[in-house]
């Protein structure tokens, strides 16, 4: 389906419920993985995904089409996931870095994490990255998103992204060597 047509249907109010269901079906998996890679835990990812779609539903009339619908949705999902983590760290009264450590510790007993030892090590390595590098690494490495798309989602330049990804890969490799 044409993205513009879907947006028009969502914004027109006519059959917008059916159009919204189509939007959910179209993007639920991609947005889920974007969120899951940030929050790590399935239940949290589910909550954030719900909130993301509620926000999309309530704000679709504000979508001006200046960016792709895809990147607008990803941006909302990313913001929701980051806001969720910030709120969690405030509630737990820990720093973001400490929260990342806790999330990784929890992975070892998470029934929805069936990673091998190397996958767990990789998650530990990712958790040591600064937030921006962590986002870029997840989006590029696990989701195979193009630099151009990531740049539009995160609203940064492609050259800055490439530099971020390069540094992230070096740090992850260094972590794996030292571990």
């Amino acid at each position: 389906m044409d993205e513009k047509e879907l947006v028009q249907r969502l914004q027109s109010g006519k059959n917008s419920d059916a159009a919204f269901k189509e939007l959910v079906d179209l993007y639920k998996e991609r947005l889920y993985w974007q969120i899951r890679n940030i929050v790590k835990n399935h239940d949290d990812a589910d909550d954030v995904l719900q909130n993301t779609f509620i926000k999309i539903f309530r704000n679709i009339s504000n979508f001006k089409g200046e960016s792709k619908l895809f990147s607008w949705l990803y941006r909302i999902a990313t913001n929701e996931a980051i806001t969720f983590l910030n709120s969690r760290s405030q509630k737990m009264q820990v720093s973001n870095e400490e929260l990342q450590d806790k999330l990784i510790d929890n992975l070892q007993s998470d029934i929805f994490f069936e990673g091998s030892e190397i996958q767990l090590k990789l998650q530990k390595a990712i958790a040591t990255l600064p937030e921006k590098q962590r986002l870029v690494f997840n989006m590029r490495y696990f989701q195979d998103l193009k630099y151009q798309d990531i740049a539009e989602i995160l609203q940064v330049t492609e050259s800055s992204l490439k530099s971020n990804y390069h540094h992230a890969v070096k740090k992850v490799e260094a972590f794996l060597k030292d571990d």
Partner: protein
Amino acid sequence: MKKQQTSQSKETGFKIPPGYFEEFDARLSEKLQNKHLPERKLQSGFEVPKNYFNDFRVEIPAKKEGKVISLFSKRNLKYAMAIAAIFVLMFSILPDDAQQENDFSTIEQASLGTYLENNIAEFPLLENILMENNQLNEPEFKNLDKELLFNYLTEHSTEISLANY
């Protein structure tokens, strides 16, 4: 290769486990995988519950009902109190003989407040002044010229004939 190995073993006396070189590549590869980001991309290791995506539904919370504004809200009470204040002001600036003439002093202020609160609709003029488009806001009210107000009320005293009540 085998010849070299045998020769080397004979020279130094060192021995190697059987099949060491045959398995070496596999073990090196495994070791490298543990030390470097693998060439072939790793999956994240995250799983989802069975049928999660098939069963996924977004539950949009119902919109909140519009705020119900009571007719007897604090806002309206403020207007009633403002009207009461005008009359209190009026009593304070009226000459004694006028007070005696109208016998306003016999009206208890509490009764007056209650009366105005319950019968505000019967004073369309003042009600309109105060209610219509919020024309009279608090700062303006404070700046009212007392003499003008007195003149106004005197001129319209037939419309607001409290003395009859």
